[in-house]
């Protein structure tokens, strides 16, 4: 089963994602971390999420780009967090901007094949109405395309609003 969890900043996406995986899956679980632990904010987030996952039996795989290269045991549980960082890493890691929409969607599809249940955490980034630089606009567009692409083959799509899960597709599997 494939579940996509979306929402804004600090809306409880991670806790919901972990809760879903915890309640539907009892086997070996992998946490795929895409955030590069660089800078105070990132380190804070990494620590916060580590504490949250502590004792829940996750093996952490750090992969900042190229998630299609990951190879895992069959029928495992996967929490992929998050598409926002993955997309930024793919786009802006090289001198020239890359367009990672297809690469990320197919990477998620590939991971889904290993997983009995995969929960993917993404972000809503297009709803603040500000004008941004051309690069940032491209990022917002890529995120929208990737989220739409994953939502198409996901069984469940859930949006978090201030901690409240809203079903956009399927059901809340916990």
């Amino acid at each position: 089963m494939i579940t996509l969890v979306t929402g804004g900043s600090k809306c409880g996406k991670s806790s919901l994602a972990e809760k879903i995986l915890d309640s539907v899956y009892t086997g070996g679980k992998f946490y795929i971390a895409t955030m590069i632990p660089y800078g105070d904010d990132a380190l804070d987030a990494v620590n916060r999420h580590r504490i949250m996952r502590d004792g829940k039996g996750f093996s952490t795989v750090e992969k900042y780009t190229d998630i299609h290269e990951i190879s895992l045991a069959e029928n495992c549980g996967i929490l992929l967090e998050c598409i926002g960082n993955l997309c930024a890493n793919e786009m802006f890691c090289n001198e020239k901007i890359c367009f990672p929409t297809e690469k990320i969607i197919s990477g998620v599809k590939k991971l889904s094949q290993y997983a009995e249940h995969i929960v993917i955490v993404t972000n809503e980034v297009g709803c603040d109405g500000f004008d941004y630089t051309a690069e940032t606009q491209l990022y917002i567009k890529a995120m929208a395309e990737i989220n739409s692409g994953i939502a198409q083959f996901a069984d469940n799509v859930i949006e978090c609003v201030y901690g409240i899960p809203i079903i956009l597709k399927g059901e809340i599997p916990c």
Partner: protein
Amino acid sequence: MILITGGAYQGKKNYAFRTFGCSENSVADGLVCSINDILNAECITNYHIFVKRMLEDNADIISVTKQLCTENFNAVVIMNEIGCGIVPLEKKDRIWREMTGKCGCIIAENSERVIRMINSVPVIIKGEL
């Protein structure tokens, strides 16, 4: 407690006035009000701005929010959803955005009803209308 959220200018305050009998006299506006106002008003608007002001004053906004939920538990709280954009460049804006998220989660958890306004349409996301 009732939480009304949604993007800017989606009809949140009008809905609160129309549906829950709030009026300008009973409102504490987060743009200008004090902690004491928050703890006593029937309706609190712009709570996301209140969060920003408290952070500027180095107040412990998480504690104040918990206090609001225990002491003024019949209040109608209105706050914008502000986290669905790009991570802000300025650290203080990032902190505001994150703290607004955390405070919103606390208020939502303590609310019997949570309503999200979209184009003046109320969508109930917790409880029943």
